[in-house]
């Protein structure tokens, strides 16, 4: 009984840490990308829509952020396919 609870506790801890890193972290990275993509640009449609062009630096930051999210999703697919072999 005690060992079951201890094992479950350590598994849960791992799940929570990965969850916070990737599950909460990736939306944050995506948000930073959205912010970089739109920061400082004029708006149209009474402020509902972004207009103009992003400056090159902001655009590169945004692309980097989105690329990280895409890479993480691809990593997720790799885990689904090769799970045990990939992570031991």
């Amino acid at each position, binding site marked *: *009984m005690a060992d*079951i*609870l201890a094992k*479950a506790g350590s*598994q*849960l801890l*791992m*799940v*929570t840490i*990965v*969850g*916070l*890193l*990737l*599950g*909460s*972290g*990736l*939306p*944050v990275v*995506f*948000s*930073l990308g*959205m*912010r970089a*993509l*739109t*920061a400082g640009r004029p*708006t149209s*449609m009474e*402020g*509902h*829509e*972004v207009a103009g062009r992003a400056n090159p630096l902001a655009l590169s930051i945004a692309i980097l952020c989105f690329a990280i*999210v*895409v890479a993480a*999703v691809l990593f*997720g*697919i790799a*885990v*689904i*396919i090769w*799970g*045990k072999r990939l*992570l031991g």
Partner: protein
Amino acid sequence: MSDVTFILATVVAVAVVFDFTNGFHDTANAMATSIATRALPPKLAVLLSAVLNLAGAFLSIEVALTVSNSVVAIQGPDGSPIPSLMGAPILIVVLAGLVGAIIWNILTWLFGIPSSSSHALFGGLIGAAMAALGLHGVKWTGILRSVIIPAASAPIVAGLVAAIGTALTYAITKSVPDHTRTRGYRWGQIGSASLVSLAHGTNDAQKTMGVITLALIASGRWTNLNAIPVWVKIMCALAIASGTYIGGWRVIRTLGKGLVEIDSPQGMAAEMASAAIILSSSHAGMALSTTHVATGSVLGTGIGRKNAVVRWGVAGRMLVAWLITLPAAAGVGALTWLIAHLLGNIAGAIVITVILMVVSGYMFWRSRRSRIDASNVNAAWTGGLHVKPTESLPEAAAEPDLHPIGA
């Protein structure tokens, strides 16, 4: 055809039906949020999810004889059936367990409640095994380890992760114009929801494959404990994918519109949380129910956003359904096992399968009275699942979509 062959054929057919209900019950887990925020049109969403479930089912490489073995004592340590139960006895237990699981899945679908298909399967098997073998037919510590602890923790962990992701998302993008934001997050939603669908196909189709393989071994038709016959894989993959494509619209409506009024940043936060938790938990060897995780994530995303509409009454009803899923499916499993046992193998198998068909048919007929489908799944939530005829106009028609994703 011998007795055992006949019962085996029945078990295989009923198992495929279970897999189908598993598919349509769980479409919501991946796609409810994307449908609710209109990141994807309803029919395209279920098609995408079905294709990914199909692919996921073929990707599963684990041998899932452990699924039944974790809660009922009908197999030895290596997963093979206990010798004294070989043949008809184990097949009847499995058949009755599947009948209990399917009936509970369809009933909860009728009420539009997302409930765990794995719990229904566990419950059905536990009830049937208890009726057949008594108290020692059940592995009580296995229930604690595989059912109670995961069920209690999944919604909490998922809710926490999704709430934090949602709160940070809104804090960071406060200055982003709202239409631009909605359009951007819709892409994020599609990617994360796809990942959940793929993971679902891998995890859930495997369970039915394991049950069928166990039945084949018990009837002497298969001997390899470490492989699943190819035809079983193909059948299960097709069953879960077609179930997903049919779409459990009632459950989708509750999870996407009923529980929390969702916006696309919340949808992405919810699905990312679900994907991360489902994948990491199955890797850690603690298989959390996709349904419990997805529901927890949606709830968390409502908690994480200021002034979001969270309907705690709906959440309460779900909690009640979750608590009674296992005992209810167990009750049906035990009852159908008794009926089958009293009537004898062949007659028993036929009668409980007919009972399954009649009960399912009745519930399906009842569902037609308040039909939910792709056309009204997103109608405004007015106190319940039911859409009043006057309100059945889909929101898509009622208010134009200002930020279609293709634009």
